[in-house]
């Protein structure tokens, strides 16, 4: 039967095409890992991995260059942590309001507007931060400059919010109606039902949403570079300037001599950044799995 044979071949071709498309992204990830490793590898031999654990990032110096990535890692951690702290209450409350409290017409207005926020280019948000937010933060805390970790974290929270809100809202909305009905039937008020039943039931989705938001935050470059001051100091103070890993790569990769120690150190920073996002995704998946089964 030639007809069946042709159909069979056609199906196979389509299948191959889809498989190819699906494996391309995996392949690219592997290639990126290989490439980063290849460029960073010579650093392990000279000056050695120990250099990365020094506390100073001074890539251009007439005295002694040092490539300690600790200030950069703590900078990224501080900003990501702060941004997450700001995002969680705002994100969850917004999601609860949109899915449980808002009237249909309110939802029609709120949702597209929030999604619009996700579409604003980060350089525009950075510019807004530099011109509007930084002076505000400066005035509010009576600081000599507004280019600090907190300003960066506020901007990043702004950028992470649409992701967190829309995924959390989906999660809350997909909680079966029978849960709510049961709770209401037992005499719980609407508010009690929302906070004690619906939100806990949607927790896995909300955690996944927050993780996604954090993924965006830790990898964000442009807005952060414009407002955090980029001083490579180790600090836990939100009112101090910090330098993130992403901003360091973006600012320094342009002019670094190819194959120099500085160049290799930047690739080491890239690897750490990649591992961080990788780890974050792994944790997110673990959490999701655990809650789904439990």
């Amino acid at each position: 039967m030639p007809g069946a044979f042709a159909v069979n071949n056609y199906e196979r071709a389509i299948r191959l095409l889809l498989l190819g498309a699906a494996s391309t992204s995996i392949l690219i990830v592997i290639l990126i890992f290989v490439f980063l490793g290849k460029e960073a590898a010579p650093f392990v031999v000279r000056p050695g991995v120990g250099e990365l654990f020094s506390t100073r990032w001074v890539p251009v110096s007439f005295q002694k260059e040092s490539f300690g990535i600790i200030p950069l890692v703590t900078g990224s951690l501080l900003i990501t942590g702060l941004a997450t702290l700001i995002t969680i209450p705002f994100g969850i409350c917004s999601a609860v309001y949109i899915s449980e409290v808002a009237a249909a017409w309110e939802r029609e207005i709120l949702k597209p507007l929030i999604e619009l926020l996700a579409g604003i280019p980060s350089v525009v948000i950075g510019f807004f931060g530099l011109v509007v937010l930084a002076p505000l933060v400066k005035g509010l805390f009576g600081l000599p400059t507004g280019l600090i970790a907190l300003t960066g974290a506020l901007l990043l929270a702004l950028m992470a919010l649409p992701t967190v809100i829309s995924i959390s809202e989906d999660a809350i909305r997909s909680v079966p109606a029978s849960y709510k009905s049961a709770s209401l039937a037992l005499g719980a008020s609407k508010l009690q039902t929302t906070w004690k039943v619906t939100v806990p039931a949607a927790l896995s989705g909300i955690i996944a949403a927050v993780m996604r938001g954090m993924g965006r935050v830790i990898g964000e470059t442009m807005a952060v570079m414009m407002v955090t001051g980029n001083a490579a100091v180790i600090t836990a103070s939100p009112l101090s300037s910090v330098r993130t890993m992403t901003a360091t790569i973006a600012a320094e990769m342009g002019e670094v001599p190819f194959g120099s120690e500085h160049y290799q150190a930047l690739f080491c920073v890239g690897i750490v950044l990649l591992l961080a996002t990788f780890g974050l995704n792994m944790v997110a998946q673990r959490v999701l799995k655990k809650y789904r089964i439990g």
Partner: protein
Amino acid sequence: MLRTQNGVSLGIIFTGLVLASVSSCSRPADSRKPADREKYLTIKGSDTMVHLVSTWAEVYMEAHPEAEISVTGGGSGTGIAALLNGTTDICAASREMKQKEEDLAAQKGIEPVEFTVARDGIAVVVNPANPIDALTLEQIRNIYIGTYTRWNQVGGPDEPIVVLSRESSSGTYVFFQEHVLEKKDYRQDALLMPATSAIIQSVSADKWVIGYVGLGYAVEAGEKVKILGVKADDEAAVVMPSEETVDSGQYSIARPLYLYTAGEPQRPVKDFIDFCLGAEGQKIVRETGYVVVQ
């Protein structure tokens, strides 16, 4: 089983494609040696000089319709590397060649020829509300390396000093470090700004910051910033940066800007450099905010 095999073979094909496209991209650049070209000139190097060099190129091409000049930035270091690799005809540099680079040139049998084509003054700027009008070089150095942290240590009010610098990839960063900081490291909490415009923005908005920018930019900023006078030492007279004081050498934070060629320049290259050094070229130097050379 079949699935994995398909995936692997597709992967191999894809990798092959990627490699093929990468190698075909890089080939033309290597084979088009500058020497082969008659009227096509490339100039690469300092970001500080891009505006100046591209204005020269535009005016030159208007007068010589047969000439074709391409100008790219990337930094002085990048330009010098390109000159030594034979991928550019002329290198624009805001600093002299380092010993390392000269050694590399000798190894490759290249004799770089240096032309001083303009001079650039670097202005130290503060907020207009700052009562300080002038500082000695030593005071500026001590502020930038972190010895002085409050304005009252240099005769101002009891307020903290926030130090602004360019990113370490900037030629201006290196020049300032070498000639003002006497090769010492910048203080760790200096804010590294991604662009000159960001320094101007911060200086105009924040009362207690200090920064440095090219003289042209400082003059352009007008009332938004206050340009500090500089004293060689306590007894010396205050010198304001200007075309005259940079030209006469009285203003000390100034640097020559160079064009480099590999060996004595031949016809098309020589014509262009003669044009830059000639009356018309030097007029452009003045118009773009730099200082002419005699």
